[in-house]
């Protein structure tokens, strides 16, 4: 069941967006230097892909969707973010 009121921090959101290809992989050392603009743009891209209102904010419906069970494969897959490489 889709979780109800979900609170999600910017860091958690940034990790989620990185995991699914909306942000470059976050390096633990420099993760803190993610700019506000980059995070907003990534949220907008996620909202666009998921068919949500594109606000760039981590609003309730966006947080709820981020908490929804899903496939682990990235949404943004291309030459740059090449999905998954078998190690």
């Amino acid at each position, binding site marked *: 069941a889709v979780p109800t009121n979900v609170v999600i921090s910017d860091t958690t959101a940034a990790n989620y967006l990185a995991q699914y290809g909306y942000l470059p992989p976050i390096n633990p050392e420099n993760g803190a230097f993610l700019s506000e603009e980059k995070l907003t743009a990534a949220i907008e891209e996620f909202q666009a892909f*998921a*068919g949500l209102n594109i606000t760039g904010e981590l609003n309730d419906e966006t947080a709820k969707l981020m908490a929804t*069970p*899903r*496939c*682990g494969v*990235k949404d943004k*897959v291309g030459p740059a973010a090449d999905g998954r490489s*078998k*190690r």
Partner: protein
Amino acid sequence: YALQGSRWRTKNLTYKISKYPTGLNKQEVDKEIANAFNVWSGETDLTFTRKKGHENVHIEIRFEVGEHGDGDPFDGPGGTLAHAYFPVYGGDAHFDDAERWTIRSYRGTNLFQVAAHEFGHSLGLSHSDVKSALMAPFYRGYDPHFTLDQDDISAIQALYGTKTNSRRSQPLPPAEEDPELCKDPKVDTMFDTKDGEIIVFKGKYYWKLTDNGVASGYPRRISSTWKELPANIDAAFTYRNGKTYFFKGTQYWRYINTTMDGDYPKEISDGFTGIPDNIDAATVWTGNGKIYFYKGTKFWRFDPASKPPVRSNYPKLIQNWEGIPNPINAAVTYKGYTYFFQDNAYYRFNDRQFKVDDANPAFPRSTAYWWFGCKSASRGTLGNDH
């Protein structure tokens, strides 16, 4: 849809399940995994052969917990359910065994649906932004009537072509019974396409009928075939102009086959002046080729060639159609007759005598038995014991 960029060179692929989920019967898992592959082989010439033991295969399937050797650890119940490799990276599929995998259940996480999605990746499909597509990234819960969205079909056929080794070259599988229609044969509407096929609408699904029952591969979602057409349609008919009209509430839509024919929906009061909203059924009567609308105890005749299309002496009472009950749920023309449906029964109309046809067994008859091929339903006249 989105393609990752790689695909298999061969269409005959092999797979094996190297590690099973802890909470399910192995044979059941084998069946569900095979069904999940069938989703894709049903639309292409792809074939999937299961191997066992240490044989080399294209797609290896494993149920794992946490870190499992590929640097992408699973995260426990919820969150990430599974992931898979695109063909260029090996094609394997991994499932988080911390999930509660279930089969044909509203509880837990449906193994078949998630597996079919992951195998889409194993074949080269990326995530789709069409919410109703199987390849959308978010799990949508168990769907007993799962069907591929047109988006998914277009995606897989872009990689592997359409199905040519189709059933057409072999005898069609026998018409099938559909549990839902056999259990409750009351439908929203039925109509005949310009090719003479009979389509049944019920809720958000539709079935194509054969002469003996329900065609295999159904139900499918109405929205996956008639884009933008809502569920729970009131009535539909195909006119001799080859266009199919759908009615719901105050609105109607016009399609040529499955393509919307203009800017719809429009108001019934605009396009069918004189016809009320929220109708029960509509059909082109085989007796005179005019369009008849039915609602409650009344009916209207609509003749596009007349001015006005509905004469002032309408509506009239359905009881004029001797033997036809009211209200009716659906009406359809089939092989030169007009049929009326109410709840689980139907009636064939004799146009010359203008009354329900004499037949053996007499009408009303069981819709389930005679239209949906439900052998468990009564063959005889409904409403009495012989």
